[in-house]
């Protein structure tokens, strides 16, 4: 029976990653202990990670532990969207619109969304980062990208 769900989840994650790295290292040249190839050390480590993962997993069955608290899905989604938008928009749209929209998305991640606050933050941040990075530190970023200009 699962007694400490957190440990079981973490253990499974570690074991899965260990398997991933294990197969990844196997395809590399291993070499010998005296002349280690690129795969030697990663292979060793992935075995260690697997063993540690299994031990963590085992603890989950023999010791009591609490459930993980509910994740903040809203924050996860909007922070993810904000970062994703910036990554895809910064080149075509330029730094000012990319920062403004990302900032709005980050504001949406909060528990209470206040439109006025969010808009002020977006304006200040987009103009501020343009002034600081493009004008001040002369980064080679256009304020508005080819899609707008």
């Amino acid at each position: 029976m699962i007694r400490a769900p957190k440990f079981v989840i973490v253990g499974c994650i570690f074991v899965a990653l260990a398997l991933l790295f294990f197969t990844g290292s196997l395809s590399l040249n291993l070499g010998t202990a005296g002349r280690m190839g690129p795969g030697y050390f990663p292979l060793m480590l992935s075995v260690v990670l697997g063993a540690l993962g299994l031990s963590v997993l085992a603890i989950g069955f023999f010791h009591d532990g609490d459930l993980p608290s509910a994740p903040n899905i809203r924050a996860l989604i909007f922070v993810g969207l904000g970062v994703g938008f910036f990554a895809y928009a910064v080149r075509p749209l330029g730094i000012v619109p990319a920062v403004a929209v990302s900032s709005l998305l980050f504001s949406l991640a909060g528990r209470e969304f206040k439109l006025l606050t969010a808009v002020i933050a977006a304006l200040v941040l987009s103009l501020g980062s343009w002034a600081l990075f493009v004008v001040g530190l002369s980064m080679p970023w256009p304020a508005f990208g080819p899609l707008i200009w």
Partner: protein
Amino acid sequence: MELFEHLALGFSVALQGQNLLYCFIGVLLGTLIGVLPGLGPMATISMLLPVTFGLPPASALIMLAGIFYGSQYGGSTTAILLNLPGESSSVVTALDGHQMARQGRAGSALATAALGSFFAGTVGTILIVLLAPPLASIALKFGAAEYFSLMLLGLVVAVVLASGSLLMALAMVVLGILLGLAGQDMNTGAFRLTFGFRELANGFDFLALSMGIFGLGEIIRNLESTGPRVLTTSKVGSLMPTREDFKRMAWPVLRGTGLGSLLGILPGGGAVLASFVSYTVEKKVSSTPENFGKGMIEGVAGPESANNAGAQTSFIPMLTLGIPSNPVMALMIAALILQGIQPGPNVMTARPDLFWGVIASMWIGNVLLVILNLPLIGIWVKILTIPYDYIMPAIGVICCIGVYSISNSPTDVLMMGVFGLAGYVLLKLDCEPAPLLLGFIIGPLLEENLRRAMLIARGDWTTFVTRPISAVLLLICALALMAVMMPHLRNKREEAFQE
């Protein structure tokens, strides 16, 4: 005296207009961020690292160091005024410091913290000056095997002293090393662990990793717990401690400085542990232990001195051996590497201006902090009233722009996003992410030395135990691990972290 020549060189570098300015900016930004709850030195240094790229190495390191100890000061301000520790190292300061504030003695508490920290910072700096040269000359004699064992020891001790499950922390270190190895192999040029992604040819970007986990991960987590912040006292009261206060804080400051200096040098130690231990010690030696938690000045003076001394001396292994004793120092090492400087005992002889300049700037930074902090407390209090609604999007935007600015690569930004989400999931599952970063940065160095040692020994694994220094280091490693596994000590460790 060679010592004074070194110091003179250091001060001549640190007192150059530009470096003085960056030291000032560093401590100011550090204090500012330290004041904001929920943003630690890790997030701050990661976010500001790109800004230092364009600076000469000495200025960059001076500014980063300033951010680090500035945030230690700032953290105690919020701990005392709001009962909200801005840093994990000022958690204990909140216990008695906030009680003093409620009794209208916030000024004395703040001044005690500042003066204690200043004293500790001065002693810490002197210790670095005294200890760095002999340590570096020992380290120069180290071979690959010794280096490997030393790094292993650093990682193990860092894990042993971390909070939470030992197994999880160990697994996080190993995972960090694996992530650090991804990308092109230095010796053979083979691409490894890239899983077919061309973007990973140069490995994971470490700033994407640290900003993702410590910047984004923390904002997502903070969104769960930000209750309304109430300023308990708008009146700070007299800043000057009374004669009685001075008498009571003298010994705790001395003890805290001693403890902090010692724990800071140890791998994995540093500020957090130092402040906890100091508080426990002050409680033990006090004639009225029952008054702790009710506004004892000793409970502020000791831990505050300890955390600053620890913060200062944790630079010693980083500067002399090139080995980080905690995640913040791991970031410093990464900064050095980005500046094209190979960290290690050679830095002191190859770049004496950088080495001594950084050390001298630490003391100057501490002076600046005392001058800066006490008169500016009013402003820090104001900053605390900025709603999180403004701070949160700002952190997100700074993280995005910061990562993008490194190599104008949108892929790096996406990678940071993935690490941010992963970091949040790990935090949710009680997996401390700090060991992962430590492993990530040490990983390549560890492998390099392992390979070299084994090449020299012609594949004979016993080389690590037949070379005496390496054997001793590995023995300490094993003892540290066994010590945590013993049930009696494990309970003690858990107790210590719960307090």
